[in-house]
């Protein structure tokens, strides 16, 4: 189950620069911590984030263990056309979590 909080406008004027914020529920386990009995906790982070607008990549990020738990990213995009803004977070586990939101551009 993907648990993400997405904040993007529902509507925008063509050419307007809109702010997009995305936060994913994830521990971003660094691999540098030890748990009970001094046992190392293996690294488990989201290492890649991609945002697409109607399939075209507009923003992406390579993430490292120094990104806080529940990775939070805020960035901007030029509103070009109505459609789907999609988000994909890929983890060390190879899994990709996705979320999307619709936007109407006038």
């Amino acid at each position, binding site marked *: 189950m993907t*648990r993400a*909080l*997405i904040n993007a406008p529902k509507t925008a004027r063509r050419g307007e620069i809109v702010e997009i914020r995305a*936060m994913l*529920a994830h*521990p971003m386990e660094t691999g540098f911590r030890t748990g009970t009995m001094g046992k190392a906790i293996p690294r488990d982070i989201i290492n890649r984030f991609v945002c697409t607008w109607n399939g075209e990549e507009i923003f992406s990020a390579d993430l490292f263990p120094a990104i806080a*738990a*529940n990775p939070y990213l805020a960035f901007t995009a030029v509103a070009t056309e109505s459609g789907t803004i999609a988000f994909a977070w890929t983890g060390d586990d190879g899994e990709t979590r996705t979320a999307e939101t619709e936007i109407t551009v006038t």
Partner: protein
Amino acid sequence: MTGRAPRLLVGLLAACLAGSSAPAGDMVDKRSGADFMSPENRAMQADDMSNPGMFAVLDGEQLWNRPEGANGRSCAGCHGEAATSMRGVAARYPAFDERSERPIDLAGRIGECRRTRQEASPLPHESPELIALTAYVAHQSRGMPISPPQDERLAPFRDNGRRLYERRIGQLDLSCASCHDARSGERLGGSVMPQGHPTAYPLYRLEWQAVGSLQRRLRNCMIGVRAEAFAFGAPEIVELELYLMERAAGLPLETPGVRP
């Protein structure tokens, strides 16, 4: 021992003064822990889209609507919309539990409901599910003033909670009051000591990198002063919660809070 006597006297005197006249809820200039935070952390709490505690609330909403246990009943099956049925509930907890004839906190009540009404397997203390349900229910009271029930049956337990609050414990020989009454606003190490009002639980603590309960926080504090912590769900820890909510009366609930 002799060195401690004056301190003890002052403490007792203060306790007597406070006990004789004003109820604990009348502390002047009562302030939420949020007031002691950096502007950045306050902003993180204030915006639901940036507050990681909201994940627990959203999970709780799903669990609220999910049928559980032998009866196949969901919380919503009996209580309906939490937005109306649960509004104000968290502001009144801990409350008196008829069955055990003791105070019970919100998480305890949810656990009881699950056991007796849903006939479902118990959720362990501090489990993500129990935290989520508690956060979801408490969130329905966000902005409402903490309003402890005027129930005489709670009085002896609340008094005991107050005694626990004022009792010096652990190798550091500190009581809750030593820091949160006498020295709130001052620093302990790099951290500002707030007044210790539990206005925002369950909350996202940066230290935990997770959402946790007031009981977890109380246990942290006890470990911090090198005392043996009360077990989750122990009668004493619920009495302490009961007293703290009385002490915080009138402050608005903030669930889910963010704290450093």
